[in-house]
Every structure is written in C-alpha cells, then in structure tokens.
C-alpha cells in the first residue's frame, strides 16, 4: 500500500535555506543539501527546494544546487519557483531535479503544464497553488501568484481541476492564510481540493504541532504533508512526525 508522505520544504535564496513567515521575515537555516541529507536519515520521503531568488545569478545558483543534489542525495527532490518557460524546466530537469513545481507561469499560460508534462511526464510536473480564503466566504478560496502578492481572482478548486486536466502530476497546495501561522493546515481548503482532483495533493502552510500533520492527512485527505520551519529549527524530526502519524493509523514508511 502506498505510504502517505512527509516532505520537508526548504526555501532557498542564493543557495542557502531561509524560511519566510507569511512570505516575509527570512531567517537563515543552513545548507540545503546538508539539511536534505539530515531529513533523508530521518526518513523524509522527498524534499522540495523552493527557489525564492529573483535574480539571474541566483537562478544559476539553484541550477547548480539541483546538480549537486543529484550527486549527493538518494531520494526524490523537487525544485520550484521562478520557471517561466518549458526551457527553464528542461534546464532544471537536466541538472537532476526529479520534479519541478510551477506556479505563476501556469496561471499566465496553463499550456506550460501540458507542454512540460508531454516533454517530461506528468510525474515530473507539480502545480503549486497558493490559495487564500475569500473574505466572508468560508468555502471559497482564490489563487494568488507572484509569491502571494497578487490575487488572480481565480477560484482555487476550479483551478486545481484545470491544472489536473492539463496534465499536472501533483498539486502542492499552500494556504496563504495559514502559512507561517502554526495554526494547522486549512482543512476545508485541503479537503475541497483533494476531493476535486484525482492527482495527489500535498498540504502546505500552517503546521505547528504533530496533530496538525495527522489532521492534514486524515481530515484534509491529503496524500502528503509538507512543513519547513518545524523541521529546520528542530521542533520535530521527520521521524517523530511519522511515528505520530503511524500511532494515528496513517500508513507511513518508517
């Protein structure tokens, strides 16, 4: 039986791990590969490097990071952030990334998902969705782009269905309301998206306790749970999270 996944996520800027709280206030959390190897030892199922560098030089650093990761890591990894074209994606996959995640570029032109999936397979293309609840409407969320700064007005559930139809292999769903809050995943959002699509959904944004991880899978119906700072700053090890999940009846690899 397929195990539910626990995925540490590293925000990477100029080759170093940082963590944004509500997408601001960056703190240095170290070398991406060293951290990833530590997570591998703790039984992380994969890792995600999110490139939050804006400059051309910074992008080149991230390609070099992907290349180094393919040499030193023996677990799957995804690189996300800043892809504009299929050629950008090709460069990252050629450098060694197993998967890439696409966000803003897909909103501007959803065919980038179709074209990238045709070239590299759906399993290699994750569509990242940053969603924020519409004020006064607890069951409606809209898609934000450009690092959460710009509201597109697109309904998140419909967008999820659209990207799945375009050939995305997974959805990385981040709640803008919960990200950095430590209040737990946005369960209604996660469940709404998980039920709307037939591709895996990775829940992201808001984890503060062990219970939150279990809620994301059991109540949110997510296939994988993602967290950053609770891992980077040593609040929990990945193994502790998985042991807790197993104690709650969730099937995990330990």
């Amino acid at each position: 039986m397929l195990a539910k996944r626990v995925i540490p996520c590293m925000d990477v800027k100029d080759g170093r791990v940082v963590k944004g709280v509500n997408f601001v206030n960056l703190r240095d959390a170290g070398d991406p590969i060293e951290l990833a190897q530590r997570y591998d030892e703790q039984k992380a199922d994969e890792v995600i490097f999110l490139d939050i560098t804006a400059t051309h030089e910074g992008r080149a650093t991230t390609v070099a990071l992907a290349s180094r990761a393919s040499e030193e890591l023996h677990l799957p990894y995804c690189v996300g952030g800043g892809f504009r074209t299929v050629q950008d994606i090709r460069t990252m996959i050629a450098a060694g990334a197993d998967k890439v995640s696409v966000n803003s570029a897909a909103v501007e032109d959803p065919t980038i998902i179709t074209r990238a999936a045709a070239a590299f397979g759906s399993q290699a293309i994750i569509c990242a969705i940053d969603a924020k609840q519409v004020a006064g409407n607890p069951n409606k969320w809209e898609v934000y782009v450009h690092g959460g700064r710009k509201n597109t007005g697109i309904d998140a559930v419909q967008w999820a269905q659209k990207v799945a139809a375009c050939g995305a292999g997974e959805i990385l769903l981040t709640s803008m309301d919960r990200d950095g809050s430590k209040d737990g995943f946005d369960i209604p959002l996660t469940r709404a998206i998980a039920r709307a699509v037939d591709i895996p959904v990775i829940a992201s944004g808001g984890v503060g306790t062990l219970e939150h991880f279990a809620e994301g899978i059991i109540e949110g119906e997510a296939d994988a749970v993602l967290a950053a700072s609770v891992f980077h700053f040593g609040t929990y090890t990945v193994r502790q999270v998985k042991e807790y999940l197993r104690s709650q009846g969730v099937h995990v690899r330990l």
Partner: protein
Amino acid sequence: MIAVVDYCKGNLKSVQRGLAAVGGEAEIVSDPARIASAQAIVLPGVGAFADASASMLQSGQMEVIRERIAQGVPFLGICLGLHLLFAEGTEGGNPTEPGLGVIPGVVDRMPSHDEAGAFYKVPHVGWNTIEPVQGANWGDCRLLAGIPAGEYFYFTHSYIACENDCTVAMTQHSVAFPSVVQRGNAYGVQFHPEKSSDAGLAVLRNFLSIVKEG
C-alpha cells in the same frame, strides 16, 4: 565498466551517482559499441515506452542490449527499463511498440480502479512495499539479498508489466503488479533504487555484487 544507457533525453546522473555511491564504476553511454563492451548494462527509466523503443531501435542499442542479455551479461532495467525487458508496450504506442523481448507479455496502463471499483490515483507516485510472490523464491534472487519482504521503495509510474513466471516481487496499488522481475542475469525493478535511500542503495550494491562475481 557498467554502461548506463542514454537512449534519449533526461537525467541519468542520479543512477550513475547511485552506482558510484556503492562503489560501482558507471559511465553514461549511448554508443552501441561501448554498450557492447561493457561488463554490465543499466537501463534507467526516462520518458515513454514508444519513444524509448524507437530511439533504441534507430540507434542500434536495442540489438546490442538484446545480444548482451542473451550472452548472460548482468542487466538492470529501472522503471521504464523494466518495461523495456518485456515484448511489447502500449505507452505512446500504436497500438504497441516492441521492447527487448527478454520477458514475454505486454506493458499496459495501470487501471485507476481496483476490482471492487475503488478509485486509485495514477500515476502511482511515492513509497510502497515490495512483497513476495507465491511460488517465486525471494531468497534465490540475488538482487534482493538482505532485503526484507515489505521494504519500501520509491515508485513513480503509470504503466505496469504483466505477471508471469519471471515475477519475483509484487506491489499493490489499484492492482498488484510486478515490482521486481528476473530472467537469468537480467533484472528489472519498477521502483527507482537511486531514489530509494538506503534500501535502494542496497539493491544497487547487490547488483554490483552480481556484476563482480558473475
């Protein structure tokens, strides 16, 4: 030298680095003559069956690999590389394209529902266990030496091989499908050992032992 066969686009470095991590001397090669002189052949999993089949036929790799497998040279097919051990595949085919034909049968899309009608997500992505097949002897499969039944490996695929007497281990998703196959010195794994952490490196180490000890 272990030839990691480059049969089109894609990243093969992680396979090469996985073999290097357990002490193997692996080179990424596309030239059929170089493949023919290699001590062992690894066919990694990149792309779709039809593309790989066409590219390997055109380059002459298909014929060389077939010959070397027939001569008993150790072979490891990973993911699509396992698929290519079979006679035919439907992925991207019209309706099927030829594989190496070492193992009979057709590689086809994984169904998205089980027998009871329950829905499963395809592609099958993530960590899953490999389980023994009734009648097959896990203990005799050198690729699995020291690996317990129920060990987790990383999978990412939408197509599956058919079960037959070459099946050594099975994995359960919407249906049970072959996750380790063997015919003589030719092995195939549906999972990615190079992405399966310590358990995956153990499989690559076992393959290296097969290469060294013959």
